[in-house]
């Protein structure tokens, strides 16, 4: 039980981390949109005519859209999604169709769940591994973003960190389901319930 509590806390921590990054991206985008609107306003004939000094001064201060906001959103959102994965795994929140299996005996259902969790664990490990290889490629080729020109591998590295946690949690979930299946003891139920 304490093991489960640990992995659940870890998954929730990652979700909150992802949520915070998402919130930062929201603030960044709102700031950029506001800056762009103000920039347009200050350049307008009206502002330039009514208070040319103030308008020019504010523009010189750099009021405008945030350079590279698109790039930052792309880098940040990738991390966010990877950070959201552990909680999705441990909650069993992935979309499934259980109408047909519902008619089958409970034991078969538990086997199916454990079996697919094992496949999922393998897939998540492969995904994390390939992400790492992809990151090495971006390092080797020195790829950068367009405007801010920060190395693309930074974003890969952040995502890789979250992907490793996701893989570890998925492996744990798979092991837990198999232990349940083989020993008959029951771990805390999945709390399910994603919506879209």
């Amino acid at each position, binding site marked *: 039980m304490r093991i489960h509590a640990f992995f659940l806390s870890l998954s929730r921590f990652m979700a909150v981390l992802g949520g915070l990054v998402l919130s930062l991206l*929201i603030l960044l985008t709102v700031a950029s949109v506001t800056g762009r609107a103000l920039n347009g306003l200050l350049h307008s004939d009206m502002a330039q005519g009514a208070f040319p000094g103030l308008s020019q001064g504010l523009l010189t201060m750099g009021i405008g859209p945030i350079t590279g906001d698109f790039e930052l959103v792309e880098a940040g959102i990738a991390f966010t999604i990877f950070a959201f*994965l552990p909680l999705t795994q441990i909650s069993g929140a992935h979309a499934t169709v259980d109408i047909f299996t519902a008619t089958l005996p409970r034991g078969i259902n538990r086997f199916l769940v454990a079996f697919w969790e094992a496949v999922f664990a393998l897939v998540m490990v492969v995904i994390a591994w390939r992400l790492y290889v992809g990151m090495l490629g971006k390092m080797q080729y020195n790829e950068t973003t367009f405007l801010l020109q920060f190395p693309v591998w930074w974003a890969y590295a952040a995502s890789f960190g979250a992907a490793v946690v996701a893989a570890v949690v998925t492996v744990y979930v798979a092991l837990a389901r198999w232990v349940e299946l083989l020993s008959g003891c029951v771990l805390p139920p999945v709390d399910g319930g994603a919506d879209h």
Partner: protein
Amino acid sequence: MSDFLIGLLSFPLLLLLIFLRMPIGLAMFVVGFVGLSWVTGGTVVALAKLKSETFSTFSSYSLSIVPLFLLMGQFATLGGMSQALFKAAESFLGHLKGGVAMAAVGACAGFGAICGSSLATAATMSQVALPELRRYGYSGGFSTATLAAGGTLGILIPPSVILVIYAILTEQNIAKLFLAAFVPGILAAIGYILTISIYVRLHPDAAGVRQPVPWPERLRALVDVWPVLLVFTAVVGGIYAGIFTPTEGAAVGAFGTGIIALINGGLRGRAWFECFYATAKSTAMIFFIVLGAGFYNGFLALTQVPQELSNWVVAQGFSAWTVLVIILLLYLVLGCLMDSLSMILLTIPIFFPIVSILDFGMSTEEFAIWFGIIVLVVVEVGLITPPVGMNLFVINSMDRETPIGQTYKAVMYFVASDILRVALMLVFPVITLGLLRLFY
């Protein structure tokens, strides 16, 4: 086995795995990966693709709109917007025959204007409206069916997560799709209200009576709806007025609803975390399906199945309308078994190339938008068709006293109204394209 045959057989295999309870995103991913490895004679290509495809899928700027809309819906709930909407609708409609149910539909439509998801709309409005419906003597099955149907307005009335996905898959303009969905969405709400009014006449026991609310109170309730109006105007208005792109609009909306929730005291303590948890689960689930679908569709393209199928359909000389109706019936059947997002991601890459070369007497872009909205409506019907209707399940889990069988019976009236609406949209494309022709 030829590549084409491998591609063709992969589809029933995929369905089989999904029906064996394999998570849908995982199933598409694995079938895509194995299929790709088979066709290319080894895992080299599939593994090479995977180096960057997860990252590029998860870092997509246009897809980043999805978690933003989901978070916005969470904030809107905490900010008390769902209560305010229902109160306002109830104070105007509650005294009519079946009025409280009508109010629930109206509130769903209002909430749909700030929430991009059906299930979130259904769940949120149930929390507010179910107790009221029961208090005024509305029967269990009728109440849950109303809310399940009302929930589908969450995705019909823009903003809508599924339209975003469709726009990306078919390279259509998100803003135009949102605009086109507007009238069909309103029509859906009107259809549901008429359905309620017919239902309570056929089943007089299903609804109780509520006293009219005095006018000053109605106006007060209306005033409380201003945050919803503000956010909707800012987001949807801002996108059309050109102040920002759809993704930026979603960020502005999430920001606005977040501030309102903060002011209304909805974001105290752990509530903030709960918002993140709910957003996290839905977001990662959706993105994993998108990833799996990307892999599966890349494999299908390699086997040339979509191209060959569309060539075949053309060679048979079927009429355009026959093909369209068959596809829509397929969606209706599949919708009884699968959730709407998975269906769109799974089928649009196969069906869209087929239908887009048929002649329906409209421009390519108009057709893509019209088809998208009709498919959206049809897959949303799937959310409320028994036996597998995600909305039915969600509401059922919130009202344990009502057996799902009763919900199934009552919801068929709403399904009928949906089918009627699809027929109208097929016969009169102007319902969907009218606003578009007016504004573009």
